[in-house]
């Protein structure tokens, strides 16, 4: 299990990506696949930092990466902000985004396209995003 703890600031996204890149590289994930997985993790973390924690740098975000064997990696991202209600997520209509100039929902759309399994749950005072990807 690999672990990375950081604060809820957008500037930390680069460090999160570097951590995921190094971890996946050590697991033997191809560069192309790696790029997409890093993107999915970055999108979830950006959402949590911006929407769940309003970029409050005193709040913490924890990321766990587990090599599940058999070419499968599992991510857990934990924060203590306002939870994301994934069940009510509706995939945005691109035409509507273009018309309204509202960009919301694009990140999760990428995550759902890239990852094989995505779960969000709110547990006591913490939010847990769990994602699985076969590579």
């Amino acid at each position, binding site marked *: 299990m690999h672990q990375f703890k950081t604060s809820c600031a*957008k*500037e930390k*996204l*680069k460090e999160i*990506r570097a951590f995921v890149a190094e971890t996946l590289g050590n697991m033997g994930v191809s*560069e*192309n696949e790696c*790029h*997409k997985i*890093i*993107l999915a993790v*970055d*999108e979830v973390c*950006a959402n949590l*930092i*911006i929407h769940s924690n309003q970029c409050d740098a005193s709040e913490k975000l924890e990321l766990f990466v587990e090599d599940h064997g058999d070419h499968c990696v599992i991510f857990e991202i934990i924060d203590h902000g306002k939870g994301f209600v994934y069940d009510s997520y509706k995939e945005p209509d*691109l035409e509507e*985004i*273009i*018309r309204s*100039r*509202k*960009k919301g929902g*694009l*990140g999760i*759309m*990428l995550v759902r*396209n*890239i990852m094989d399994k995505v779960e969000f749950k709110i547990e006591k005072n913490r939010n847990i995003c769990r994602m699985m990807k076969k590579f």
Partner: protein
Amino acid sequence: MVNIEKQIDEQTGHYEIIVIGEVDASSSIHLDEALTTAMTESKHILVDLRGLDYISSAGLGVFMSNIQEIEAEGIRFVLFGMKEKVFEVFEILGLDQLLVIKKDKEEALEAVK
């Protein structure tokens, strides 16, 4: 971090935005500003993405949210030189169908005319 430069081709008058580095939720504001400025100054805009190593939805959102105005203003707007891994991200959301994306500068110059 992202580094964004602009240049205006003396011969053609085309406006070129050169994006180098990574565009994520913390840096997409710079792309947004560069694009907004370009759109007020020119109707022929090229975006050189040869140096772009990473783009997340925040960056894609900058392009998407300007598509309508680009069309309404009759702006010729062409992206070019994307690395394969970056292009794949545009493809996942189907943005490759909504934007004019060319392989190299030569093709881009042809398309922006």
